[in-house]
C-alpha cells in the first residue's frame, strides 16, 4: 500500500511517556542536529543571558538607572568610557552600562505582560471563532486581517497615546507599552489559532468525537485546544522579539517610558541620535547592541523551534519526502496556513516511506 511518509514527527508526537525530556524546547534540543542545534543553542544562550541580567539587574548594575551622581559628585554628560563608567555616560548624564542592564528588566516586564494578555485573548477568540464559524467568525476575521495588515508600530503609537497621553510612570509606561503591543498581537494569535482550529475541526478524530456524541465544549477542550496550540511556543518567541522592537520603536519616537521611570533602550537611542554626528559612539552602540542581541537570541530560538516543527524544514530526516506544505511562520510572526502536520509515523522505526 502506498505509505507516503514515515516522517517521524517528533514535535507532533507528544505521545510517549511525558517526562522532562518531552517538554517543549528540551524535546527540540534533543531532536536537533548539526547547524540547527548550533542555532538553537546560540539562541538559548543569548536568551538565558537576557533573562539572567533582567532577574539579577540590581546586583549586576553598578548604579541605579536614574542615578546622576554618586559620592564623588555628578557623573557628567557624555563622558568617555572609564573605570568609573565602563561604558561611559549619556547626554543626560546617566551611566550607560547601568541603563543597559536595567533596560533588560523593562523589556522583560513588557514582554511578559504583552504576551500574556494577547495570548489568552487571542487563543480564546481564535478557538471559539474557528470552531463555531458563522457571521461572528467572518466579522472577526475581517477585523483581525485589517489590523494585521496595518503597521504595528503606528497602531501601538495610537494606543500609547490613548493609555498614557504620551507621558508615563513606570507601571503606567510598562502597561501602556504592553497593552499597545497586545492590541497588535491579538490578531496574530487569533489568526494562528483559528487557522489551526479550522483545520483540526475537519480532522477525522474530531469528526469521530462528534459521531460519538461528545458536546461542543468537550470537543473543544479535549480534542481541539491542545492540538491547536502546539504551534504557539514558536509564535510566542517571535512575538517576544517583536514586543522588544515595538517597545524600542515607541521609545525612539518619544512614546515610551520616561528615563526617570525606568531604563529603556529605545529612549536612550533617541537621545544618542544627535551624539553620532559628533562621533560619540558609546551612547548609542551599547543599548543598540542590547536590543539586537536580545531579539537575535529569542528569534533564533523561535526559528529553530519552527524548523523542527515543520516537516518541510526539519533537517535531514525528512529529506525529500516530507508532506507538502504544512504551515510556516512568516517573519512578521504570524503563521500562514496550517501548522504542524499531524502525520504520525506509521509503523514505528520503519523507513518504509521510501518504498511507497
Amino acid at each position, binding site marked *: 500500500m502506498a505509505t507516503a*511518509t514515515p516522517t517521524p514527527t517528533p514535535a507532533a508526537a507528544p505521545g510517549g511517556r511525558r517526562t522532562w525530556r518531552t517538554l517543549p524546547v528540551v524535546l527540540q534540543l534533543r531532536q536537533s542536529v548539526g547547524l540547527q542545534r548550533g542555532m538553537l543553542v546560540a539562541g538559548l544562550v543569548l536568551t538565558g543571558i537576557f533573562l539572567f541580567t533582567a532577574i539579577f539587574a540590581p546586583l549586576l548594575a553598578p548604579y541605579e538607572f536614574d542615578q546622576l551622581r554618586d559620592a564623588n559628585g555628578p557623573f557628567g554628560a557624555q563622558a568617555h568610557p572609564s573605570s568609573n563608567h565602563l561604558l561611559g555616560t549619556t547626554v543626560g548624564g546617566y551611566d550607560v552600562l547601568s541603563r543597559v542592564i536595567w533596560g533588560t528588566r523593562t523589556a522583560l516586564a513588557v514582554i511578559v505582560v504583552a504576551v500574556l494578555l494577547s495570548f489568552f485573548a487571542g487563543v480564546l477568540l481564535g478557538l471559539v471563532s474557528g470552531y463555531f464559524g458563522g457571521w461572528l467568525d467572518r466579522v472577526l476575521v*475581517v477585523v483581525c486581517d485589517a489590523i494585521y495588515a496595518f503597521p504595528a508600530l*503606528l497602531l501601538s503609537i495610537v494606543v500609547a497615546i490613548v493609555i498614557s497621553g504620551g507621558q508615563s510612570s513606570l507601571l503606567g509606561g510598562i502597561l501602556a507599552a504592553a497593552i499597545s503591543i497586545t492590541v497588535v498581537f491579538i490578531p496574530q494569535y487569533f489568526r494562528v489559532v483559528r487557522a489551526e482550529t479550522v483545520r483540526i475541526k475537519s480532522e477525522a478524530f474530531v469528526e469521530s468525537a462528534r459521531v460519538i456524541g461528545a458536546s461542543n465544549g468537550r470537543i473543544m477542550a479535549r480534542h481541539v485546544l491542545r492540538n491547536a496550540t502546539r504551534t504557539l511556543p514558536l509564535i510566542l518567541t517571535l512575538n517576544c522579539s517583536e514586543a522588544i522592537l515595538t517597545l524600542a*520603536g515607541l521609545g525612539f519616537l518619544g512614546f515610551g517610558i520616561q528615563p526617570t521611570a525606568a531604563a529603556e533602550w529605545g529612549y536612550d537611542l533617541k537621545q544618542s541620535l544627535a551624539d553620532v554626528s559628533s562621533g560619540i559612539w558609546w551612547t548609542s552602540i551599547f543599548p543598540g547592541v542590547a536590543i539586537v542581541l536580545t531579539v537575535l537570541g529569542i528569534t533564533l530560538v523561535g526559528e529553530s523551534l519552527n524548523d523542527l516543527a515543520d516537516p518541510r524544514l526539519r533537517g535531514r530526516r525528512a529529506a525529500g519526502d516530507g508532506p507538502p506544505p504544512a504551515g510556516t511562520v512568516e517573519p512578521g510572526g504570524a503563521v500562514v496556513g496550517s501548522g504542524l502536520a499531524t502525520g504520525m509515523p*506509521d509503523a514505528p522505526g520503519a523507513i518504509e516511506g521510501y518504498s511507497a
Partner: protein
Amino acid sequence: MTTTTTEPATGSTEPAAPAARRKNGGGLGSYLLIRFLLIFPTIFILVTTVFFLMRATGDPITAALGGRLPADQLQQRVHEAGYDRPLIAQYFSYLGDIAHGDFGTTLSDRRPVVDVLKTFGAASLELAVYSLLVAFIVGIPLGLVAAYKRDKGPDAGLRVFAILCYATPPFFSGLLLKLIFSVGLGWLPVAGRASTGTEIELSTLPNATNFYLIDAIRLGDSEAIKDVLQHAVLPSVTLGLLVAGIFLRLVRTNVIGTLGSGYVEAARSRGVAESRLLRKHAYRPALIPIITVIGLQIAALLGGAVLTETTFEWKGLGFQLAQYLTARDFVAVQGIVALLAVIVALTNFIVDIIAALIDPRVRY
C-alpha cells in the same frame, strides 16, 4: 498524511469533491471583485478603530493646547472645532469627510492632511522604491541560495544574517551606518534628502514631482543627481535591509517547500539541471505565496519608514508623523494614520491582483 488514500483525488471528468472544486475555477473576475470589495471594510475598520481610540483620551485640542490656554479660550476652540458634540455625531461627520477625501486639518500648522501627503508623500515613495529595490536585490537571490544549500554552512550564515536584519531596529542600523560611513569614513552625508544647495536648485523646477531623483534628472544637473543619490544610499540600505531579511526568510521557506515537491522530483527524473530546477521549478510556484506575504510586509515597510525617516531626517510622511507626535497634534496623527490605512488596503489589493495573475489556477 501518513497514507495516501486509494480513493483518487480527482475523477476523470466528474468533480472530485466540492472543496476541491471551489478552489479551482471560479474566474479571475469574481475573485478580483471580491478582493476589491474587501478594501472597504478594511479601511472602514481601521479608520473607526483609530477614531475611537484617539477620542478615548478626550478632544485633540485639549491634548495639544491644554494648560497653555485659559480654560474659557480652550472651551471656545473646542466648541468651534465641534469637539463638544456627541461622539457618534463627530464620528459620522468624520466618516463623511473621509468619504469626500477630507482627512482633517492639522492643529499645529493648520494644513489639510491631504496636503501633507502631497508635500511629503513623494519623499516617502522615493525611499520606499529604493528600499524595495535593495530588499529584492539582496533578499531574493540570497533566499534562493539559502534554500538550495539548506542546513549547510551558507544557509546557516544567511539565516543569521536575515535574523540580524530583522533584529536590528532601523534607528540603530541607521546610527551604525552613519557612524561608519558618514562620521568615520566621511563618504556619505549624515542626514537629509539633499544638500541645501541642491534643494534650492530643485525647488526652482516648475511642476516639481518632489521625487528628488526624477527632479534632478529633469534638471539635467549631474552634480545634483549625484548629491541626491548619495543622500539616498544610507536610508535606503537601512530600510532595505530590514525588509530584505524578511524576503530572504520568505523565499527560503517557500522554495524549500517547493524543492521537496513531486514536480521537482519529476523534473529531476527527466534530467533537468539542478540550477534550472531551482530557478524554474521551485522558484516560480513559490512566488505566489511569497508575493501574497510581501503584500502584508507593506506594514513592516511603513513602520520601518517612520523610524528610518526620523533617523535620517528624511522629510517624508513618517518624519512628519513623528513631528506631529512630538507636537501632540493628534488630528494630524489621526489623519495620517487613516490615510496610511487607505494606502495599505490599496497596496494589498494590488499585490493580490499580481499574485492572482501569476497563478494559472486563478487565471483560467
